[in-house]
C-alpha cells in the first residue's frame, strides 16, 4: 500500500490512476505475482470460499433488510411477506438462511486446516487470533440473525442464550436486563439485535481485512509446513490459485445450491415457522447446528465446582458451563502458545495427528449430543444408567485436555518424522509415490 517502485501500466487510464493511487500495483503485488507455496491442497480453498460467503451474506442481508421490520408485532409477518410477496424474496431468504450454515461449514474447514497443518504457529500467531475473533463475531452475528424472524426458536433461543450472562456473579442480572432493554426478551431486544446484526458483518469485514493483511505479511503456510526457500517452492497467485480457488468455489456453491433449492429448511428447525409465543415453551430448545458442540459443552457442566466434601463452591454449575463454553473458543485462540512444537504440519507429527483427529471426532459427537435432549438415556451398564450428559462430559474433558495437556506434552515429547528439505522436495517425494496426500 506504500508508494514503492512501480512498473508503468500500458493502459493510459490505469496508469493515470496508478500514478496517483497505486491501487493496481497493489492488486498485482498481492493477488497477481504474490508468491504462493505451490503445494496447496484443496483445504486451502476455504479462505476464499469463506470470503465469498461473507459477501453473499452481506448482499442478500442488505436486500432482505429493505423488506423487513424489527418490531415484534410484525417481524414474523414481514419474513412471510418476503417469502410470499417480494419478487424472488424466497430465493433471497433461502440463500441467506442456508448461507449462514455454509459460511460456518467453510470456516470450520478453514479452522481445521489451520490446526492440521500448524498454520497458527510463529510467525502467524496474530493472523490466527484475528481468525478466532472473526469466528466469535460470526457466532454473535448468526445468533442475532436467528432471532430476527421472531419464531418460537428465535425467541426461546434468545432467552436461553442471553440468560447465560446472568451466571456472572453480582452483576449478572443487571447485565441481562441491560442486554434485553427490559425484563424479558421483547421488542427492545429485537430492535437492538437487528441493529447489531446489520453492524457486525461490517466489523467482520474490518477484521477480515486485518486477517488478510497479516497473511500477506507472513505469506501462506502450506501442507508441508516448511517455509518457501527458493523460487522453485512458489507460484504466482494468479493464474494458479485464482484458478484453483475458482474451481473449488464452484464445487462448493453447487452443494450450497442443492440445499437452497431442494432442501432449504433441512438445516433449520420447524419451530421457527411458528410465531414467537412467550407463554408456550417449545419441548426442546436447540440452537442452530453450528452452535451444537458448544451448547453440549455448556450443558455438560451440570455440577458446582468447589472443594470436594466441603460446602465451599467456587462457582455454580451455570457459571461453570458458561465459562467452559467461552473457554472452549478462547483455547483455540491460544493454540499458538499451547503448542510449541517446532514442526508445523501434522504430516510429520503422527501423535499430534491422532490427537487432533480424535479432537475433531469429539467435536462432531458433541454436536450430535448438543442436538439431543439433556440427560437422554443411552444404555444401562449394570445399575448405572449412561446418558448423553456423561458422554458430553467425557468429550468436554477430552476437548480441554487436548489444549491444556496434550498440546503442551507433545510440544516437548513428540519426535517428528524426517522432513523434506524444501516444499519442492516435498512435492517431488509425493510424485515418486512416497507420501501422504493429506
Amino acid at each position, binding site marked *: 500500500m506504500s508508494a514503492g517502485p512501480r512498473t508503468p501500466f500500458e493502459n493510459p487510464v490505469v496508469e493515470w490512476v496508478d500514478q496517483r493511487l497505486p491501487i493496481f500495483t497493489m492488486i498485482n503485488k498481492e493477488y497477481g505475482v504474490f508468491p504462493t507455496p505451490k503445494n496447496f491442497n484443496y483445504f486451502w480453498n476455504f479462505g476464499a470460499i469463506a470470503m465469498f460467503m461473507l459477501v453473499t451474506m452481506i448482499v442478500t442481508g442488505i436486500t432482505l433488510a429493505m423488506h423487513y421490520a424489527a418490531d415484534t408485532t410484525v417481524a414474523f409477518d414481514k419474513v412471510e411477506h418476503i417469502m410470499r410477496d417480494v419478487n424472488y424474496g*424466497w430465493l433471497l431468504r433461502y440463500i441467506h438462511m442456508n448461507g449462514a450454515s455454509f459460511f460456518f461449514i467453510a470456516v470450520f474447514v478453514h479452522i481445521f486446516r489451520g490446526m492440521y497443518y500448524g498454520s497458527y504457529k510463529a510467525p502467524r500467531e496474530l493472523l490466527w487470533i484475528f481468525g478466532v475473533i472473526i469466528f466469535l463475531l460470526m457466532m454473535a452475528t448468526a445468533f442475532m440473525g436467528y432471532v430476527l424472524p421472531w419464531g418460537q426458536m428465535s425467541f426461546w433461543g434468545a432467552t436461553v442464550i442471553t440468560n447465560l450472562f446472568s451466571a456472572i456473579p453480582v452483576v449478572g442480572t443487571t447485565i441481562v436486563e441491560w442486554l434485553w432493554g427490559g425484563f424479558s426478551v421483547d421488542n427492545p431486544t429485537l430492535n437492538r439485535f437487528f441493529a447489531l446484526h446489520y453492524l457486525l458483518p461490517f466489523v467482520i469485514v474490518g477484521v477480515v481485512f486485518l486477517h488478510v493483511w497479516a497473511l500477506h505479511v507472513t505469506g501462506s503456510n502450506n501442507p508441508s509446513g516448511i517455509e518457501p526457500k527458493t523460487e522453485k517452492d512458489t507460484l504466482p497467485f494468479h493464474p494458479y490459485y485464482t484458478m484453483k480457488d475458482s474451481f473449488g468455489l464452484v464445487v462448493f456453491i453447487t452443494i450450497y445450491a442443492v440445499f437452497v*433449492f431442494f432442501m432449504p429448511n433441512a438445516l433449520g428447525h420447524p419451530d421457527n415457522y411458528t410465531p414467537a409465543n412467550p407463554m408456550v415453551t417449545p419441548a426442546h430448545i436447540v440452537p442452530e447446528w453450528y452452535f451444537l458442540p458448544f451448547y453440549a459443552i455448556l450443558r455438560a457442566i451440570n455440577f458446582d465446582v468447589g472443594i470436594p466434601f466441603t460446602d465451599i463452591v467456587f462457582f455454580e454449575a451455570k457459571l461453570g458451563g458458561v465459562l467452559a463454553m467461552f473457554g472452549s473458543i478462547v483455547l483455540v485462540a491460544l493454540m499458538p502458545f499451547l503448542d510449541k512444537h517446532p514442526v508445523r504440519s501434522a504430516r510429520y507429527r503422527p501423535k499430534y495427528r491422532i490427537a487432533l483427529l480424535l479432537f475433531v471426532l469429539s467435536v462432531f459427537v458433541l454436536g450430535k449430543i448438543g442436538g439431543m435432549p439433556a440427560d437422554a438415556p443411552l444404555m444401562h451398564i449394570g445399575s448405572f444408567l449412561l446418558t448423553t450428559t456423561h458422554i458430553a462430559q467425557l468429550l468436554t474433558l477430552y476437548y480441554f485436555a487436548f489444549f491444556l495437556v496434550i498440546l503442551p506434552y507433545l510440544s516437548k515429547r513428540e519426535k517428528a518424522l524426517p522432513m523434506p528439505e524444501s516444499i519442492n522436495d516435498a512435492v517431488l517425494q509425493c510424485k515418486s509415490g512416497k507420501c501422504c496426500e493429506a
Partner: protein
Amino acid sequence: MNKTMEKNSMFKKLILTSAAVMALSVPSAHAAESAGVHEIVDVPFSFEGPLGTYDKASLQRGLMVYRQVCAGCHSLKRVAYRNLEDLGYSPEQIKTIAGDVTVMDGPNDEGEMFERPGRPSDRFKSPFVNDKAAASANGGAIPPDLSLITKARHGGADYVYSILTGYAEAPHGVVIAEGKHYNKAMDGNVIAMAPPLSDGAIAYEDGTPQIVSQYAKDVATFLTWAAEPEMEHRKQMGVKVVLFLSIFAVVMYAVKRQIWKKVH
C-alpha cells in the same frame, strides 16, 4: 503397504466416521421427537423429490376439504384468494370463491366500518376475530393457523396426513380427559381436535374416492402448497442452477488442469 499408507487409510476411516455422525445429525422427517409413541406415516406425494410438482386436481380437492371442514376452526391468514391461481382457477372462479365471504372493511369517507364481499386481494378470512374468541370457542385451545403448518411440524405433509388419519380407540389403560381425543400421530397421543373427517363428508365431483385417507392426502397437499407456494418454481430453477454449476465446475476443472500442467 508402507506405514504412510496405513495412516492414510486411518485418516479416511476417521473422515468417514465423522461423515456418518454428521448424517445422523441431519434432522430426519420421521424421527420421533419425544418419548411418546408418535407414528408419522410416510405418504407418497407428487411434490416430493427434486422434480416434484403439485397435483392440481389434488390441490383443488384439498381446498374443498379446507373450506368445508378445516376453515370452521383454522385460519389460513397468510394465503390470499388471488394465490389460488396456482391451483388452476381462472380469475372469474377466484372472484366467486373470494365473494363467498363477507369481510369488514373501512372506515369509509363517513368514518364508518362496513361489510363487503371478499375480493381476490383479500387474505383467507379467519373463522375467529381474535385468539381469545378462538380459545373460548374451542375449550381453551387455539386451533393453529394452517398457512405454515407443514413447515412448522417435523414430517410436514406426512404429519398433517398422520394426524388426520391417526384417530383411534385409546389403548387399554390410557385415560383420555373429557373433551380430548386419542391420536397415534400426536406428540403425547392426546389431541384437543375432534376427528374432523369422516368417509363421505365432502362430496368430490371428480370421482375420487370419498374416504378419510383421500381427504387427508388432498388437504395435506393443499396445505403444503399454502406453506410453500414457491416450491415448483424453486425446484425448476434449482434443476437449471445445479445443472449449470455442475457443467461450469467441469469446465473450470479442465481449465485448472490446463494451467497447472506445466507445474512440478
